[in-house]
């Protein structure tokens, strides 16, 4: 057992139904934007409380993400180049938070735009939106301004931002937009996700070299979105093929075997991280399990971890021909993970109260290209 995995549970345990936290760090391409929006759309469609706001939230996310692809700059140090995207839902707030590198010579103009937007009321924003629309066709900046104006107008909130110098020529532009879906004024109080939260996440992701994290409901649709995001964020290499295969088995394992969080029937809360090292990627996942199943699971992983490659092949073939046709469990998932990754499965199981445990696993996939 690996105690060091327990941080996963600590980051996770406060999750409530329909909460979602998705973080991506890396290059943002048009294709990736499409995939992130797809993920957001799937989850919006599932949450009970967003019915009226879905198209608005979707629109604001689209504007925020396209803003990055249109304006991200490229620095000399590749470490500074990664953009950060956070989609966060907690109770009745939806937050879209982004950070990207920009050229410092555009800084003053951007600041002025944002200040203008933030000083206008709803009526003023409507007016500015109309004026800017007529200019869009004529200036390249028009489109960007319109995006920001629309985000402010449709969210009904100020655009919270921070511009942080990175080097002589570049700054980092952080922007958060909050959408209140409670439909009442009461919900409009305290901001649940601040610019500082975004900067903290960015620093944490940079320091630990996380590429992606997802905290929310694990079903087949979310699994497919995460796989698409992996595919669009990385070119096709031997390593990506292995990551893809391990990720499918690891996450379908959650989709099929996870227990729901207490009190939330049918909602399979889980968490997933991709972390990059110089020589390998680590995939980490966590989910609730029924306490009575924990010892059998631990035993099974220990047994598979103890096998060498010949032993794994033998076990794989044995189970392959065992046609019990159990739709839930093939018995091959962990063996396949071991065979594809070439690493042992590190795991940890902690007590999560009320007859549940929380199961965490980490798999290293070596870079082979």
């Amino acid at each position, binding site marked *: 057992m690996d105690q060091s995995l327990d941080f996963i549970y600590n980051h996770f345990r406060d999750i409530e139904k329909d909460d979602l936290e998705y973080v991506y760090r890396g290059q943002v391409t048009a294709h990736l934007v499409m995939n992130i929006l797809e993920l957001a759309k799937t989850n919006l469609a599932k949450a009970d409380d967003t019915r009226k706001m879905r198209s608005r939230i979707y629109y604001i996310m689209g504007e925020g993400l396209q803003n990055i692809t249109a304006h991200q700059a490229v620095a000399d140090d590749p470490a500074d180049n990664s953009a950060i995207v956070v989609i966060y839902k907690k109770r009745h707030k939806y937050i879209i938070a982004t950070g990207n590198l920009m050229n410092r010579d555009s800084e003053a103009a951007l600041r002025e735009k944002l200040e203008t937007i933030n000083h206008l009321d709803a009526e003023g924003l409507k007016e500015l939106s109309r004026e800017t629309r007529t200019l869009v066709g004529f200036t390249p900046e028009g489109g960007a301004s319109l995006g920001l104006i629309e985000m402010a107008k449709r969210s009904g909130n100020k655009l919270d931002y921070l511009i942080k110098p990175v080097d002589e020529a570049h700054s980092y532009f952080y922007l958060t937009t909050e959408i209140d879906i409670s439909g009442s004024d009461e919900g409009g109080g305290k901001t649940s996700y601040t610019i500082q939260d975004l900067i903290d996440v960015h620093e944490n992701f940079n320091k630990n070299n996380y590429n992606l994290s997802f905290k929310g409901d694990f079903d*087949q649709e979310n699994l*497919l979105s995460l796989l*698409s995001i992996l595919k669009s964020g990385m070119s*096709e*290499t*031997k390593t990506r*093929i*292995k990551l*893809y*295969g391990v990720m*499918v*088995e690891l996450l*379908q394992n959650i*989709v099929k075997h996870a227990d729901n969080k207490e009190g939330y029937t049918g909602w399979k809360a889980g968490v997933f991280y991709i972390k990059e090292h110089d020589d390998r990627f680590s995939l980490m996942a966590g989910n609730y399990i029924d306490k009575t199943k924990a010892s059998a699971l631990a035993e099974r992983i220990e047994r598979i971890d103890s096998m060498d490659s010949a032993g794994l*092949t033998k076990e794989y*073939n044995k189970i*392959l*021909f065992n*046609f019990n*046709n159990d*739709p839930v469990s*093939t018995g*091959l*998932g962990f*063996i*396949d993970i071991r*065979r*594809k990754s070439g690493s042992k499965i590190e795991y940890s199981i902690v007590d999560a109260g009320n007859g549940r445990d929380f199961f965490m696993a980490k798999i290293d996939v070596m870079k*082979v290209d």
Partner: protein
Amino acid sequence: MEPFVKEPTVDTPQVVLDAEKGLFLLARMSLPEDAVEFYAPIIEWFADYCKNPNPQTILEMKLEYFNTASSKQLIQILLLLQGLKDKSDIIINWYYKEIDEDMQGLGEEYSQIINLPFNLIPVAKFDK
């Protein structure tokens, strides 16, 4: 017999089974949430085909990826064909992306555990 044709989705393969035209194809991605349910009619089709097969059966396996749940279903199809050896010339064309060691390895393994001629065919990429 009636052909069985299914368009591909993000998590289920393209399937073309047409005895009259001599087409037997599985292509693209296979990671359905419920592989047993997805493959049941396909296995049923092959079981039917076995009753009155063509003199030659070439199964084109052009799967880019299949999950472990699918592998248990695919092996059942291969076993059905193995049982047909005396009635039909069976060939399994197992395509894999040349950089995909895992699909290559699975093809090699399956060719050893299934008693049928396998052609392992590397491709630079699959047609879309």
